[in-house]
């Protein structure tokens, strides 16, 4: 679909950006020490840190990806909400307090607290960089997705604008400005998701099963790049045609045509007892390079929508396919184990003063994040029935839902701007984590460079700029992939590489530095290799046949997370110090 930029949206976006940058420059004067730049001096209040957790964690994948997935496939998207939130239980009950006690700037600090090992620092730093880059990709793709309706600019422009802004935010005041951006974003996201949910419930559900609204649409892309809609050039001028917005209820319970305002439970119950047009696409490529994509409505019962198995990635759980079921279990395991292994989440524990603050800020984080994730179900189903979905782009569901309430008005402007800050908040956290790993773990600990506080901050800023530039390139290369799907990769790698080392360090006295180093390496290499050889990557990245893949299912966690634990135990047992326990 062609989205027209709105002057109001641009204004709100510029205000957001201006405020964010002004605050970054304001705090720049106070962030000249390494402790202030990389960990905000450990002085952030636990309540503020809790909402910053939400701002850090609720990424483009959560807001754009999950809402889009629910809007097009129903309950399957909500499975991500459940898995992401469950992961915070691991963070609170197992990781939060010990990590705060043992570390200073990076999660490698905590892993290495007993051993003073270069091997641990090196592998943990590489793991941090790889996970951060994999997590950055979907954020930058999300930025490119948002730029089209907001400013009317192409995908790459969104990626470059966000990349440049985030790099500026991080370079000016590091973790201090990053915390502020995340706090602002987390708060706004929760507030305006609530506003949209209330509007969805107030609007209720209305039947639209007219032939016009259910007519198939055909998008043809010719070898020269020109695009046709139903055989007519795509555009909004005379003699041109654009893709039609879709998404409607085709039957309500008891034959009614509209419900009026609904309560939250009543809304879900009504959806469950209705029929809705879900849009499916089929792409055919001819030998001359012409691509023809046909979008057709598929009338689906609410009971089918509100249970798992509609999305292609989850469809096998309704069949007898064991690899399909293992793929599902593997994904849910990675989501559960991945949250507490993400470097940008872990370093936020160093921004509060003590363990009690770490615990309390996680509690606030779980409250705000859990509340938002419950709202994703309403936002996704609201978008599904809004009549304003873009059939060619599932990542646009949430902003277009806002547009359905007042076309071109304040809500769309604010939600689009919040979506942009969503990307800013998460990307800034990732860049701080990556630059901390470069300065503290790689340069200082592994290479043995002696640096003053001033030099650490300066090199950290250069590292942030380089990581930001890499993120921009990857955001352009991976255009068109669903952002939720991409985040699943980052979770799998983080859970496989980092969690076994963290958990065993805390709970097994025989853990050795060799065991930790081997576990991180094994988890990282195995999960990355598995992903690169998976059917999903064959199909979506290489453009090859998924069936040619040599691994039986795409999600690696069920194999690579236990492998990390196993390698750690075996190597630790083999490398026990003679005559004393490893802890000694």
């Amino acid at each position: 679909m062609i989205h027209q930029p709105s002057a109001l949206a641009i204004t709100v976006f510029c205000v957001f950006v201006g405020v964010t940058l002004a605050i970054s420059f304001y705090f720049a004067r106070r962030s000249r020490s390494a402790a202030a730049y990389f960990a905000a001096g450990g002085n952030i209040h636990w309540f503020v840190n809790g909402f910053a957790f939400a701002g850090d964690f609720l990424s483009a994948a959560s807001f754009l990806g999950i809402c889009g997935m629910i809007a097009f496939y129903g309950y399957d998207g909500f499975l991500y909400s459940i898995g992401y939130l469950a992961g915070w239980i691991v963070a609170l009950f197992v990781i939060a307090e010990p990590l705060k006690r043992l570390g200073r700037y990076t999660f490698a600090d905590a892993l290495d607290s007993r051993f003073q090992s270069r091997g641990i620092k090196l592998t943990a730093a590489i793991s941090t960089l790889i996970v951060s880059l994999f997590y950055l990709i979907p954020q930058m793709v999300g930025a490119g997705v948002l730029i089209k309706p907001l400013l009317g600019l192409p995908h790459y422009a969104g990626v470059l604008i966000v990349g440049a802004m985030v790099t500026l935010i991080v370079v000016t005041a590091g973790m201090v400005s990053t915390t502020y951006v995340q706090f602002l974003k987390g708060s706004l996201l929760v507030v305006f998701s609530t506003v949209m949910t209330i509007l969805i419930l107030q609007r209720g559900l209305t039947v639209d099963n007219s032939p016009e609204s259910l007519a198939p649409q055909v998008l043809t892309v010719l070898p020269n790049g020109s695009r046709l809609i139903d055989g007519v050039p795509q555009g909004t001028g005379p003699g041109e045609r654009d893709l039609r917005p879709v998404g409607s209820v085709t039957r309500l319970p008891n034959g009614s045509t509209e419900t009026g305002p609904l309560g939250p439970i009543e809304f879900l119950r009504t959806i469950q007892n209705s029929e809705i047009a879900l849009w499916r696409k089929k792409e055919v490529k001819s030998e001359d390079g012409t691509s023809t994509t046909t979008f057709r409505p598929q009338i689906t019962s609410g009971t089918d929508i509100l249970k798992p198995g509609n999305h292609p990635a989850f469809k096998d759980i309704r069949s007898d396919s064991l690899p399909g079921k293992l793929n599902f279990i593997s994904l849910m395991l990675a989501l559960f184990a991945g949250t507490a292994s993400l470097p940008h989440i872990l370093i936020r524990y160093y921004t509060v003063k003590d363990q009690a603050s770490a615990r309390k800020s996680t509690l606030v984080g779980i409250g705000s994040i859990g509340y938002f994730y419950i709202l994703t179900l309403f936002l996704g189903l609201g978008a599904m029935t809004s009549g304003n979905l873009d059939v060619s782009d599932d990542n646009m569901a949430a902003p277009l839902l806002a547009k359905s309430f007042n076309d071109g008005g304040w809500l769309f402007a604010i939600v689009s701007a919040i979506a942009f800050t969503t990307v800013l908040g998460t990307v800034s956290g990732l860049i701080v984590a990556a630059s901390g790993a470069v300065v503290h773990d790689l340069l200082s600990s592994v290479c043995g460079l002696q640096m003053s506080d001033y030099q650490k901050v300066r090199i950290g800023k250069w590292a942030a700029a380089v990581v930001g530039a890499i993120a921009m390139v990857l955001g352009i290369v991976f255009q068109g992939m669903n952002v939720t799907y991409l985040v699943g990769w980052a979770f799998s790698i983080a859970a496989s590489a980092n969690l076994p080392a963290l958990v065993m360090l805390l709970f097994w006295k025989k853990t050795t530095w060799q065991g930790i180093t081997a576990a991180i390496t094994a988890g990282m290499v195995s999960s990355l290799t598995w992903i690169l050889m998976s059917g999903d990557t064959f199909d979506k990245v290489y453009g090859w046949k998924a069936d040619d893949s040599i691994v039986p299912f795409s999600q690696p966690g069920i194999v690579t997370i236990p492998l990390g634990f196993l390698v750690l135990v075996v190597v630790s047992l083999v490398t026990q110090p003679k005559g004393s326990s490893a802890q000694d």
Partner: protein
Amino acid sequence: MAHFDSSAPTHKEAFDPATAKRNSRYGVILFFIYTTIYAVFVGINAFAPATMDWIVLFGLNLAVVYGIGLILLAFAMSLLYGWLCRAPASSEESL
């Protein structure tokens, strides 16, 4: 914006090994309880997906009730953990 001032001094909680050990014990117990409930949810979805159709509460199916329930349970358990860990272990022993 005082809470963003990275240069301001703060009062830190003193590290108490007994409190850390107690908190860790509570955390592990609650972790295993939640993990079990989560694993059952994943297992039902994977091996008995038709069960998710069952209408269990307020006319809603098991998938919706269990899914939202898992999110609410996580928050409830985190509140419980915060309450259990509110005081130093030494003050509990003296009661």
